[in-house]
């Protein structure tokens, strides 16, 4: 290709709507835009003036697939603003609910969105109805895995999407422990299917090396999606409440989402399962670690396609973690922890399936929201996705356009972006791109 434009109007098999525009002049990429097209819903403005107790449920509507991540980040922000200290039971139940989220969400991405790339077909709808076909086996594995993740959420928090039981300070309804043995049995039974998926995504050889830094939560004690400090590859650790100060928001004028750069010696960074495996593989559940040992030497990796393998390993991590919690937890009937309403600011940072998620709540002494900010993973990865695409197109313009389109979608899909999330923003100073 000497000169011309390549446009992918709608990237498929991702959550939400985004496109890519590439301008080529004299065999060189002169412009490339990764465009997030979902319209904003301005929820961080809509939540102002609402009682804090109603806000987490409202803000879980930012996203359908990772609503539990938004719910828990928002609960954490508000609980910290009110100096509410959770019981150990609540912390453990949220942990296992989060395992359910990760199992379902990662399986959706890996099997429904990425597996067709692995099999060289358009869609899971094209997988043959042949019980011996490897694609058919993996697809049916995915039904079992996703359903288990959803059922964990149903038992612990009432639903996988916009869960009704969690509230500020604890739970509105205590989960029924009589339902745990059936989940434990299914978690044990699912492990060989999860391991088959891990091997599949290990054998899926794609390469694109990023020069980005990585960020994720790390707490030094366990592989944790909820508790920890934000860590980068230099070993710099930032408390959750200081995360905001290290980011600069970047206006991307053609995108409904702004991007972010990190105020550090690294120009850009990447969040997600790859970052978590790069930094926290030593903290994996011992049983997980033993069963995936042959794959772990890949990490740390700068190959963005390894985010798929990292997610597959995280499914097993969450299966084993949920087993540990459900086998040992003793449920007692607890009421949510309450403190007198007070003015305060709280920050909640969690690892959403696709990376670090930040919520900040400022509450007044009447318990009403005065200010609210959200930073989502896809906004943080947006600039990096664009850089990776530019690198890919720059090195492969000799390939047919249909190949370029397919490969570009694979790169974007590897990040597991979520455009519904990405159109929510943080109110800090902007840098014109």
């Amino acid at each position, binding site marked *: 290709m000497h000169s011309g434009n390549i446009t992918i109007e*709608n990237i*498929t*098999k991702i*959550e*939400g*709507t985004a496109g890519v525009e590439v301008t080529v002049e004299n065999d060189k990429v002169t412009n490339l835009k990764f465009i997030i097209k*979902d*319209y*904003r*819903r*301005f*929820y961080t*403005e*809509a939540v102002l003036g609402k009682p804090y107790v109603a806000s987490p449920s*409202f803000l879980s*509507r*930012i*996203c*359908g*697939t990772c*609503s539990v991540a938004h719910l828990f980040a928002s609960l954490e922000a508000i609980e910290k603003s009110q100096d509410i200290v959770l019981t150990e039971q609540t912390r453990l139940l949220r942990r296992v609910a989060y395992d359910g989220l990760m199992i*379902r969400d990662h399986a*959706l991405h890996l099997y*429904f969105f990425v597996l067709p790339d692995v099999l060289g077909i*358009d*869609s*899971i*709808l094209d997988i043959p*109805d042949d019980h011996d076909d490897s694609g058919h086996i993996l*697809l049916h594995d995915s*039904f*079992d895995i*996703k*359903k288990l993740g*959803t059922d964990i959420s149903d038992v612990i928090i009432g639903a*996988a*999407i*916009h869960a009704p039981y969690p509230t500020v300070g604890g739970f509105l309804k205590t989960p029924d422990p009589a339902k745990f043995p059936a989940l434990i049995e299914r978690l044990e039974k699912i492990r060989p299917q999860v391991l088959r998926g891990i091997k599949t995504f290990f054998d899926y050889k794609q390469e694109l090396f990023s020069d980005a830094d990585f960020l994720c939560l790390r707490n030094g004690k366990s592989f944790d999606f909820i508790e920890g400090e934000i860590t980068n590859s230099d070993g710099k650790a930032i408390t959750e409440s200081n995360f905001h100060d290290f980011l600069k928001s970047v206006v991307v*004028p053609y995108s*409904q989402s702004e991007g972010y750069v990190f105020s550090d010696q690294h120009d850009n960074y990447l969040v997600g399962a790859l970052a978590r495996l790069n930094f926290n593989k030593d903290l994996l559940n011992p049983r997980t670690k033993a069963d995936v040992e042959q794959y772990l030497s890949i990490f740390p990796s700068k190959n963005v396609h390894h985010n798929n393998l990292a997610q597959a390993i995280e499914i097993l991590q969450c299966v084993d973690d949920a087993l540990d919690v459900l086998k040992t937890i003793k449920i007692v009937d607890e009421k949510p922890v309450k403190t007198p309403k007070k003015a305060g600011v709280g920050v909640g940072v969690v690892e959403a399936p696709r990376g670090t998620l930040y919520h900040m709540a400022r509450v007044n002494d009447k318990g009403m929201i005065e200010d609210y900010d959200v930073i989502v993973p896809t906004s943080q990865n947006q600039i990096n996705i664009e850089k990776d695409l530019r690198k890919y197109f720059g090195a492969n313009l000799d390939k047919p356009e249909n190949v370029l389109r397919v490969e570009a*979608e694979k790169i974007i899909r590897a990040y597991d972006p979520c455009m*519904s999330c990405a159109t929510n*923003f943080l*109110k800090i100073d902007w840098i014109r791109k």
Partner: protein
Amino acid sequence: MDTAYVSTQPDKIKKLVVGWFSFTCSEDSTILFTELLNDHFAEWKTLVEFRHLKALKTNNSIENLDVAFIEGAISSEKQATEVTKIRNNSKYVVAIGACACNGLPSASRNMFVPENMSFKTKWYMEHFDYAAKVKKLEDVIKVDDKVDGCPMNAEAFKTALWKYLKLFKIIENA
């Protein structure tokens, strides 16, 4: 309802031609739809041709749909044009989820007081093609059925799907 079925055309031939579309929303109903596939994939694949389903396939078309299932509210003239085109290519349209059925919560910005809006909200409203108000689906196109809920009520969706499978004589009552 969704257990036994009898195909009126067992040698495939006719399937219900369906499109699934998302506009302004969290796509929670799309996610719930993918969850329903855990139990119904094989069954629905024999009865339904998913002609447009961007979440699951790259090769999509909106031509000659029997039923369009549309999730999300309408935020701009561009979206209104797009959804009108879908309506014109579909025999029936089913609004899916709260944002499509009644606008909320995506239409929360309709309650914003302009002088109180943040600088950044104003900037995005001015620099992209936002309509003055977010609209529910039937404010823009004719809607034949609604499946409410946030996310959609799964049983109501299956009932609606079954209704059109019968209407187009893809199945008979078992």
